[in-house]
């Protein structure tokens, strides 16, 4: 198992190195695709291994069921994003002065980004986890700024600044947590998650409380919780669409993962209703705050980005409720949201390429001109807003159910109503773009094979997850929920 | 057997008597206006004439135009049979059924008025439906002043209940309310003028403008039957007192006829002593009726 983990870390870096020395674009693409497929396979094998044999760890590397959930996710998402990038990027760089270089840069950064995300999930130490999270920001910042247009630079700048400031607060929290660990006087590796988890109950509550606040706000910035979410719509809207999909689906989930790791530790020493109030409050606030942005929006990718904020809010809320059911729902929702949202970003990418604008006002008549694309987009919007019988409906339902069962009746009702408002906003703009007889563009190009496959794979996965989860995934999800709830 | 015979006879009786009542009202009205007025039996002559004349059917019309008189006639007769308190079907009479049987006749007549394609017909139909909309709640409310104490909407029980009711203020209020509705429902001044021949002021007559011959006869006859029915309703529910003498069916019949006569003359008096209201003042008129009914219900 451990060699596999190491392999999962090394393969993306190796791929990046190979790409660096490759010349022809077709070769670059092949290396890239091969690397991604191998990475994904390794990651899926890891999950299966964890399902069979339980947590593994050695030194600084550690994987348990919680990481397995996220690893699965990364495996799926890097695969679809890699696949989608193939045709998308060709079109994207067509107008660059030196397309070959740009493509090369993109694929290298892509692989490095994958590496940083995987490293977040496989390290055991909270300090290293912090390092890895910061590394994801840095790796993705250049992807966000990929086109170096004014808007892209602006987005990347804000992304790095806001996230780094946030992450600095998380570091402050982590140091305080370390201080609390030292203060117990017990032996144990510094900031080791397992060690901290073992002595969780003995940590000084007042210190842990402050540490936890800093950690939640710090990683919350990265998760995109309001009001620290400000970087998110900028970065998501300016990044190339496969990267937007990865940012929204994988990166936010990784940040959530780190948050969950920390929650698992502090649960033993803090009064539980403190954690509940903090997380439920932040979660509900996030859902609430995005509503006006979804009701009045002009940019299709920003629309999707705000929807991500909303979903992160829902997940945080579920984590705050904290019952095993709620956490299970949260994990399932992370999974479903990642797949659906990345699919949606891919589609939005195709749309923006075809219409050469992100302005909703200018995108008209998708269904009339590109029936397949239009219907796929519509279906995905329905999925993301929680229409049955797709996966998101179920995870949303489980979370709401957990809210009611956990005594958060008012919160649950408020959440349902807010989701209705979100639905109204999302649908309004989607209808404008999809149904209309006016035309926005004259000539259309057929969807690339890679792009189509990526979208179809996402659609299939999200549809199946509505009806059936493989036993392995189901078990892993349950075990992961137990880990977060302190089992 | 007796029952079957009376079922057969009662409609004929109604049909036979209705023009007479209409004649009485006309005569009384004329007398009060210091006119000689038409003969008491003039309505019979009119009907006789109409039923011996051919008719002109507008080429614009369809079969709806032709069936409407039949249905109107049938509803009037059915209403009479279900209200005529001497009749054998009385136990089947129900307030809501009665109201809706009237509505049925009106429905088809209004359709027929539109079928002719003339503006006058349409205007008549439109106004008739307007009046019916105002009348219906008032009619129901005034009947409820009797039905609610009776605890049932069966006409028979309502009548029994009314007979045992002492002459009190609520009763009088209810009676006045119903009488106002009766004026509207029979199409008399101040709601409608049955004698007008000026197209723009016609309501009920406006709908009939295109009818002639026996179709017109049917409708006229049905209107008279309807008028009689409503008067009977009034007398049975709001003037229910009978003499203490037990003189069998004949004495009762005569007494009943007397009360009917009073009601008919009352109608004539009202018609003579008031002016026709402007069409859009009717809301107020019927609102007063509703208010009186409500007062009656409160006071009970």
């Amino acid at each position: 198992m451990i060699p596999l983990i190491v392999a999962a870390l090394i393969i993306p870096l190796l791929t990046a190195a190979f790409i660096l020395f490759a010349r022809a674009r077709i070769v670059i693409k092949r290396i890239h695709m091969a690397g991604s497929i191998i990475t994904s396979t390794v990651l899926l094998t890891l999950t299966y291994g964890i399902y069979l044999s339980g947590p593994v760890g050695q030194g600084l590397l550690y994987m348990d069921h919680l990481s397995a959930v996220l690893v699965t996710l990364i495996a799926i998402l890097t695969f679809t994003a890699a696949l989608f990038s193939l045709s998308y990027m060709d079109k994207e760089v067509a107008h660059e002065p030196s397309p070959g270089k740009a493509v090369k840069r993109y694929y290298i950064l892509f692989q490095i980004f994958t590496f940083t995300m995987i490293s977040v999930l496989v390290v055991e130490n909270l300090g290293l986890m912090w390092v890895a999270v910061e590394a994801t920001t840095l790796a993705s910042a250049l992807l966000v700024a990929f086109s170096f247009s004014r808007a892209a630079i602006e987005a990347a700048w804000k992304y790095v600044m806001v996230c780094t400031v946030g992450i600095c607060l998380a570091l402050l929290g982590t140091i305080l947590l370390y201080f609390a660990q030292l203060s117990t006087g017990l032996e144990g590796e510094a900031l080791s998650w397992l060690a901290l988890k073992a002595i969780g109950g003995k940590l000084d509550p007042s210190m842990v409380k402050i540490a936890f606040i800093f950690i939640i706000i710090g990683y919350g910035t990265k998760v995109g919780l309001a009001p620290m979410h400000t970087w998110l719509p900028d970065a998501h809207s300016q990044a190339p669409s496969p990267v937007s999909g990865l940012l929204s689906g994988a990166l936010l989930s990784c940040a959530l993962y780190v948050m969950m790791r920390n929650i698992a530790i502090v649960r033993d020493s803090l009064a539980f209703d403190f954690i509940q109030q903090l997380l439920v409050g932040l979660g509900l606030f996030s859902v609430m705050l995005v509503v006006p942005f979804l009701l009045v929006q002009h940019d299709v990718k920003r629309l999707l980005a705000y929807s991500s904020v909303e979903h992160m809010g829902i997940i945080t809320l579920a984590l705050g409720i904290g019952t095993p059911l709620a956490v299970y729902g949260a994990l399932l929702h992370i999974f479903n949201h990642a797949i659906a949202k990345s699919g949606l970003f891919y589609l939005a990418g195709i749309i923006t390429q075809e219409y050469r604008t992100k302005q909703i006002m200018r995108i008209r008549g998708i269904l009339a001109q590109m029936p397949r694309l239009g219907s796929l987009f519509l279906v995905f919007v329905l999925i993301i807003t929680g229409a049955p019988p797709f996966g998101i409906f179920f995870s949303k339902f489980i979370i709401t159910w957990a809210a009611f069962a956990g005594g958060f009746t008012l919160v649950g009702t408020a959440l349902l109503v807010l989701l209705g408002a979100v639905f109204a906003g999302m649908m309004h703009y989607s209808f404008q773009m999809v149904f209309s007889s006016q035309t926005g563009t004259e000539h259309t190009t057929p969807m690339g094979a890679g792009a189509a496959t990526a979208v179809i794979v996402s659609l299939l996965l999200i549809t199946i997850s509505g009806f059936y989860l493989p036993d392995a995934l189901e078990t892993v999800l349950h075990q992961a929920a137990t880990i977060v709830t302190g089992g | 057997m007796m029952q079957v015979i009376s079922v057969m006879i009662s409609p004929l009786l109604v049909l036979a008597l209705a023009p007479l009542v209409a004649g009485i009202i006309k005569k009384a009205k004329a007398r009060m206006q210091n006119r000689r007025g038409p003969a008491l039996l003039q309505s019979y002559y009119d009907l006789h004439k109409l039923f011996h004349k051919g008719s002109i059917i507008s080429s614009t019309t369809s079969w709806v135009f032709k069936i409407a008189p039949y249905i109107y006639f049938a509803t009037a007769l059915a209403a009479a049979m279900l209200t005529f308190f001497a009749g054998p079907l009385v136990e089947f009479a129900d307030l809501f059924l009665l109201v809706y049987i009237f509505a049925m006749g009106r429905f088809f007549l209004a359709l027929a008025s539109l079928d002719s394609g003339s503006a006058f017909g349409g205007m008549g139909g439109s106004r008739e439906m307007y009046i019916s909309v105002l009348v219906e709640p008032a009619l129901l409310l005034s009947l409820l002043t009797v039905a609610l104490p009776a605890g049932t909407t069966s006409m028979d029980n309502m009548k029994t209940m009314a007979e045992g009711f002492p002459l009190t203020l609520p009763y009088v209020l209810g009676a006045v309310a119903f009488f106002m509705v009766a004026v509207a429902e029979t199409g008399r001044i101040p709601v409608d003028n049955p004698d007008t021949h000026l197209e723009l002021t016609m309501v009920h007559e406006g709908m009939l403008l295109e009818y002639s011959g026996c179709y017109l006869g049917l409708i006229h006859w049905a209107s008279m039957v309807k008028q009689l029915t409503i008067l009977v309703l009034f007398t049975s529910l709001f003037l229910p007192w009978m003499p203490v003498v037990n003189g069998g069916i004949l004495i009762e019949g005569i007494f009943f006829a007397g009360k009917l006569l009073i009601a008919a003359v009352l109608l004539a008096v009202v018609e003579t002593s008031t002016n026709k209201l402007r069409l859009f003042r009717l809301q107020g008129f019927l609102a007063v009726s509703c208010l009186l009914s409500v007062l009656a219900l409160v006071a009970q």
Partner: protein
Amino acid sequence: MSLMIILLMFTAFLLTRVTNLRTAVSILLVQSVVVAFSCLVVGLETGKTHYFIAALLTVFIKAVIIPYALFRIVGRLKREKETDSFLSPNLSSLAAVAATAVAYGFIDRALPGIISRDALAAAVAIVLIGLQIIMIRRQAVLQIIGLNTMENGLYLLGLSVTKGLPLIIELGIFVDILVAVAILGLLTYRLKLSYLSTDTTLMQKLKG
């Protein structure tokens, strides 16, 4: 150690006042050297080797590479100067004083009787001042410096309360900072190319 803390606070205060980019980078350099010295001091106190390595790394990365990189960027940015800050230098110094007061107040209130109270409070104060610099200053380079100040404050915190993080983590942090500065520097350069200025308030296109 207290001397180091005082020096650090002093540099942080200075940073709130400078308008010249080159001066600001120099101050950051001094700050980093002070941080390295503190590390060395702790190393001498405890006698553990990894502090010496950490101090060496600090000097190398924070006092050599980063200032060098920033100097190079500043060299390319001709006629860039901090003007029309959100707050005037006096007011921003006042804000820094306020931040220090808040930090002390907060530490006393939340963690009464903690051992290294001064160091903790100073560290929090420096973090807050760093945040302030990012908020108040318009120039991209100054914002980068603000970020570094924050990081230095945190480093100081780690040193003073926990006697430093494990070496591998520190190594990671150093690499992150280095890469962050590199990327921000690259972005600053691109900023200059496309906006012809490194005034970050120009970047207000993405909204809503």
